């Protein structure tokens, strides 16, 4: 059997990367939405 660790690393890396990126993106958008709500309340 060939050494397929390269594909495995790519797969797990990709999964971790996509999940992390999605979580960060959600967080950023939530924070932005919350800030704009707060700004509205102040103004």
């Amino acid at each position, binding site marked *: *059997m*060939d*050494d*397929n*660790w390269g*594909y*495995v690393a*790519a*797969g*797990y890396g*990709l*999964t971790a990367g*996509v*999940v992390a990126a*999605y*979580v960060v993106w*959600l*967080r950023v*958008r*939530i924070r932005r*939405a*919350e800030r*704009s*709500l707060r700004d*509205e309340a102040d103004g």
Partner: protein
Amino acid sequence: MTGKLLGVASGVSLAVLAVLALVVVPPDAVQGDAQRLMYVHVPTAWLAYLAFFVTAVASVLWLWPRTRAPHWDLLAGSSAEVGVVFTGLTLALGSLWGRPIWGTWWEWDARLTTTLVLFFLYVGYLALRRTGATADERGKRCAIAALIAFADVPVVHFSVTWWETLHQDATVFNPDLDVRMEGFWMPFTLVFSVLAFTLLYATLVRTRLRLAELDEGREERELQRAIEERRRAEVVPA
């Protein structure tokens, strides 16, 4: 509080899964280490289907007059977005597995093809959600679109299966995706991976739902303000 707990639980279980799948589980007798990709590929596929199922159920609940609430529409949209992310991931992981095992990145296999069509169907659904209609109008259109997409999937699967069996003899690769699970750690890790990703799904949908509610509130407020400004502008000159 539940949100924090859920997030921590899914993070921890994913870390445990990584250790199980990459270190504890022995390499497969036939597929070698590439088989380790199954412990992410199978649960992401499961998660994608679960997400679209939730979208369909939420859409029905929105359409049913007795259970209609704006919440269901937002849940349907949130779940679909998570579903699209994980369908894309499933396809990519399948390719990464297929390359060493089948010798090709892509095979026009019934399951793969259906999943690809599914991906585009729900990308379209997400696009439909962003076309700026009122919440009610959007809810109605999107709920119907989600149900049509959901009903379309079996028909697509059926036709693609039929198409594939027609020229199966032309397939040089063994298209057998079913993995034989031996010993204790292999099945255990697979079941664990499904549980871990289900937790992740709950966390992500919860977060996405919070964002959807915030956005909805902001849009409503902006609309309200616009109406008020218009009213003031009409009153002053008179």
